[in-house]
């Protein structure tokens, strides 16, 4: 019962957070950014965390969503959010296309192939004038209707992102308990053993990859809606892929709340050090960023939530104990 009470207090705090920070819009914006990062990392978590296929190229899907949102505005005059389903569809198709050959590769090979795919996409987009080339494209400069979702305050974004994140976490939670969730964990522990037991490993990895891609595209569209501007580096750059991975791994990959915990730590850190150090400090921010990542990898290889010995981490350990 106490556990539920604790959970309820956290949910309440999350919901009223914008009211608590009414006087400080910067904090409201920070809250929205944390949620957005958590959305992307939670989407990555499906393939990278649960299925254990470490993609370092999710920027492809993030970019698909971000560009779809700005392109439907720039070329067809539609509200950017209308590009979200299109972006998700494109991302799912691209995931199927690149997933079939690359998911056959295991371990490092898969990671390398996803990096190459993302870089390939970034170079192509940089040279595609229809998508603004290297300059990028902008969303609506001034909101025409409320559908443009262009607000001065960060509060509407906060609740929009919160709703999306809640939906993704609910979906992930259902998958975790489903047949697919068990299959993915089996594949992560040992793909060969899973196959031997009759799990269609290739098919389930592909499903997880496509679902992850679609949701990552949604994160990209939301990014484009909030920022109103997309260019190759901010949508398809390698740092986009890496950030999703780092946030999930920091909190605890393959755990439901891992990405959210990771985002709660990393995003404020990044924003605060950016604002404290300003201009020249941008380099120092990433130095700190790199140092923290190294320390996490060195001392907490399973993420922060693993410290609390949550059930999934524990059961994985005992399973391994039995295997040995």
């Amino acid at each position, binding site marked *: 019962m106490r556990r539920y009470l604790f959970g309820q207090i956290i949910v309440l705090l999350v919901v009223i957070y914008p009211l608590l920070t009414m006087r400080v819009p910067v904090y409201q914006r920070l809250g929205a950014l944390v949620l957005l990062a958590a959305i992307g990392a939670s989407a990555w978590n499906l393939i*990278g965390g649960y299925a254990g296929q*470490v993609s*370092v190229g999710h920027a492809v899907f993030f970019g698909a969503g971000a560009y779809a949102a700005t392109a439907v505005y720039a070329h067809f005059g539609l509200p950017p959010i209308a590009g979200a389903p299109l972006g998700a569809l494109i991302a799912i198709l691209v995931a199927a296309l690149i997933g079939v*050959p*690359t998911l056959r*590769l295991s*371990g*490092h*090979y898969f*990671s*390398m*192939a996803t*990096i*190459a*795919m993302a*870089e*390939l996409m970034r*170079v*192509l987009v940089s*040279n595609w004038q229809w998508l603004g080339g290297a300059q990028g494209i902008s969303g609506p400069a001034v909101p025409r209707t409320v559908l443009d979702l262009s607000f001065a305050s960060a509060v509407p974004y906060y609740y929009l992102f919160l709703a999306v994140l809640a939906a993704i976490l609910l979906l992930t939670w259902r998958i975790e308990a489903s047949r697919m969730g068990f299959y993915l964990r089996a594949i992560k522990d040992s793909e060969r053993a899973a196959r031997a037991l009759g799990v269609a490993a290739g098919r389930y990895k592909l499903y997880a990859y496509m679902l992850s891609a679609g949701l990552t595209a949604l994160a990209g569209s939301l990014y484009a809606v909030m920022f109103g501007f997309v260019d190759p580096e901010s949508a398809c750059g*390698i740092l986009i892929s*890496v950030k999703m*991975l*780092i946030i999930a*791994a920091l909190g605890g*990959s393959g755990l439901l709340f891992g990405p959210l915990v990771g985002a709660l730590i990393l995003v404020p850190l990044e924003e605060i050090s950016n604002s404290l150090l300003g201009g*020249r400090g*941008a*380099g*120092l*921010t*990433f*130095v700190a*960023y*790199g*140092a*923290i*990542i*190294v*320390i*996490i*990898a*060195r001392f907490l*290889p*399973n993420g922060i939530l693993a410290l609390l010995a949550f059930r999934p981490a524990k059961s994985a350990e005992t399973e391994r104990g039995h295997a040995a």
Partner: protein
Amino acid sequence: MSPILLQVIVSGLLIGAVYALFSSGLTLIWGMMNVINFAHGDFVMLAMYTAFVVWTLFEGGPAASIPIAALVLATIGVLSYFLLVRHVMKGPMLAQILGTFGLALLLRYSAFWYFGANFKTLPDNLLGPPLVVGSVRIDAPRLLAGTVGLIVTLLLHLLLTHTAIGSRLLAVSEDATAAQLMGIRPERMQAIAWALAAGSAGIAGALIATFFYTSPTVGETLAIVAFVTVALGGFGSVPGALVAGLLIGTIEGLSAYLIGPVYKDVIVYTLFVLVLWFRPQGLMGKT
């Protein structure tokens, strides 16, 4: 063959030899310990800044900067191994990727913070006039880089295949426990491998700095070239890296000349994906 085409191929082979040199280190670590060093490109970047510092301090050319960069980088390699890699190797694959990527960010933005974002270049005439053979004109820095790159890569290969140290390194990469029973210390061998890998990246960086601009993010571009080279050549194979490096240098040059400079990366990445698809073990890797 038209003179321009010949020129393009010769330049491609020369740059390819340098690719081979800095990819050898990556492939050595990968093949021996199954660790991808995402900071490898940033090792090259640090070596380029080392060459720049050597020049600004006492106007030292490549004769001074190559050994200094090799020593500095070998030290950094050994430190990285003992402080970080040795520990993350025991963890999950994700922790390895995080560890070396964190190191990459740390090095890249330390350089950014210290040297600034501006491009730095060494003087053009550092090595004298270009060499002209028939219709082909070769810039002296590129000729030096290609030649030294080729020689050092071959020396590295000989070291691995024809010396006692090389046999011990191979033994550890085959089976660390068995090697330990034979009286070889795996950790010492792995530290030596990191010294060799980072040291060869150091030589490559000092060479590249003589004809290419130095910036904090240059390592990112170079790392991707190295990944493609290693994948194409076969993980763990130094001769594979040499063949693949020469091939990629030439293909890059040819596609820039025949299709357009913008598309050279597209061609190289597509090649990479095709290799992973059809021959994931690479040209010379073992299955």
